[in-house]
């Protein structure tokens, strides 16, 4: 099902990209966690007074903060933990398939006794695993930092739940970019759709958050189906997680099937 040799080569070529995004997200997490002050949450909220309300909503920032868990759900997971992995997914998704077809190097992969399906599955598994590693590392570091600075305040189970759902939504976006990468032979088109669709989802969610009149936009976006603060407050996300997992599976399988059957201009 998978090629170990290709997986190693893909890892070697792309680990730095993952590391850069991990570094940036780690920095944001560190700053946001260290800004928390359990004794004066009101002061924290007052920082947002200067920001117009619509903009707060657009960026997923809520003033209904009660503790560090809801604070992180809003300030860190409201936008940053989805938008940055989205950029990562767009870049990686294109690199893994369409770019290799476009520049012709796919010919070398296919001139070995590995089927197209095996090659694409290997690339897709790398894409998903890299996001899983990113999520796990950020979760672990987040918990460690909270425990070091504010022992006992973080609701670790709720935080884990939030991280799992966020990871699944990011994987759905990754598979969207990956699907277009399998569909198109040109980087130009793969990047255009692979970036365009997720960015549209993100903008739709931000707009939908600002006003009830355009809430439908949010409902149509895969980013808009959950509220991070509600997730940590205890809303049931099992059904939602299954939906995201289904999207990941369908897009992955569709990408493999399309790539298996199409003509490659190599």
């Amino acid at each position: 099902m998978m090629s170990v040799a290709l997986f190693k080569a893909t890892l070697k070529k792309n680990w730095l990209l993952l590391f850069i995004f991990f570094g940036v997200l780690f920095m944001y997490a560190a700053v946001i966690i260290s800004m928390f002050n359990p004794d004066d949450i009101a002061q924290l909220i007052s920082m947002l007074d200067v920001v117009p309300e619509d903009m707060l909503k657009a960026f997923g920032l809520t003033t209904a903060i009660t503790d560090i868990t809801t604070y992180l759900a809003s300030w860190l997971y409201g936008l940053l933990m989805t938008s940055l992995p989205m950029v990562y997914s767009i870049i990686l998704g294109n690199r893994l398939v369409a770019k290799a077809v476009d520049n012709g190097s796919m010919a070398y992969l296919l001139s070995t006794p590995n089927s197209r399906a095996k090659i694409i599955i290997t690339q897709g598994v790398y894409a998903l695993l890299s996001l899983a590693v990113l999520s796990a590392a950020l979760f672990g570091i987040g918990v460690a930092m909270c425990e070091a600075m504010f022992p006992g305040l973080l609701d670790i189970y709720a935080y884990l739940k939030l991280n799992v759902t966020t990871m699944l939504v990011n994987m759905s976006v990754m598979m969207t970019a990956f699907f277009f990468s399998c569909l198109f032979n040109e980087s130009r088109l793969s990047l255009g759709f692979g970036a365009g669709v997720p960015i549209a989802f993100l903008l739709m969610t931000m707009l939908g958050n600002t006003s009830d009149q355009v809430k439908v936009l949010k409902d149509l976006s895969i980013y808009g189906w959950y509220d991070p603060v509600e997730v940590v407050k205890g809303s049931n996300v099992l059904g939602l997680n299954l939906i995201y997992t289904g999207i990941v599976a369908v897009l992955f399988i569709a990408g493999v099937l399309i790539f298996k059957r199409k003509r490659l201009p190599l």
Partner: protein
Amino acid sequence: MIEVKNLTLTYPSGKGIFDVSFTVKQGEIMGYLGPNGAGKTTTIRALMGFMYPDRGSASINGLDCWSKAPEIQRFLGYIPGEIAFPDSMSGVEFLKFMHDMRGTKDTKLQNQLLEMFELNPKGKIKRFSKGMKQKLGIVAAFMHDPQVLVLDEPTSGLDPLMQNRFVELVLSEKQRGKTILMSSHIFEEVEKTCDNVLIIKDGRIVEQSDVQTLKASQRKGYVIRTKEAGAMAQDLKAVGFEASVIGEDVVEVFIIAQEADRFIKTIAGFAVMDLDVKAQTLEDVFMHYYSREGER
């Protein structure tokens, strides 16, 4: 054995290959010739399983090229027409990667080939010259000792010395019973290595014959420097040669082998300052043939 039967593969533009049939027998070297855009690479795409045909079939050692592509790759060596390596790898890493992907370990042949082509694979492929990239492509195609080879313009970018090395390599592989399909632009290369030749034009096979027969009908071009260029061209045309004045004091003429005597006698009356054989590509050699086909 490579078997192509009534293969049609068209692109949305309407170009492509139409009803192409040929067989390359075990131990045979087939040259595949034709002008740019005639369909050589398209045929090779079908053989490699990169594209499925509209009609007809292509098979290698009895395995269908589209549905059994991974199985075929176990005993196939391939040099792409436009070589593109996975970027960011070094030459050493690439060869190791190809071994890993093929599940082969023996590097004896690889080292012999590197030595034969005087290639040092260290360093990033991105920084390699065109010739070095081509050599790396040759090493990667031959290093797992494949029974069948599909080579698309294998010597492009190589200097004459290395082209000769390549001819030696192909001849020694032929001795070992390899089956080879090779597209090329260099007549000498085809002449020295191939048993038979296929000529494709506008997506259709227009000629299939052995190299000796083609050589007999081969035209040679000569470039003559003379003060009386105009008069000489007229005289040559008068006796039926295709001649033209191509520059100041320069006449270009095309003849086939059995006309050599008549040609020399015709120009003997002029003061010839210089006589050169025109450097010829296969296109030139078969231009006559191509244009005749075109008029039909």
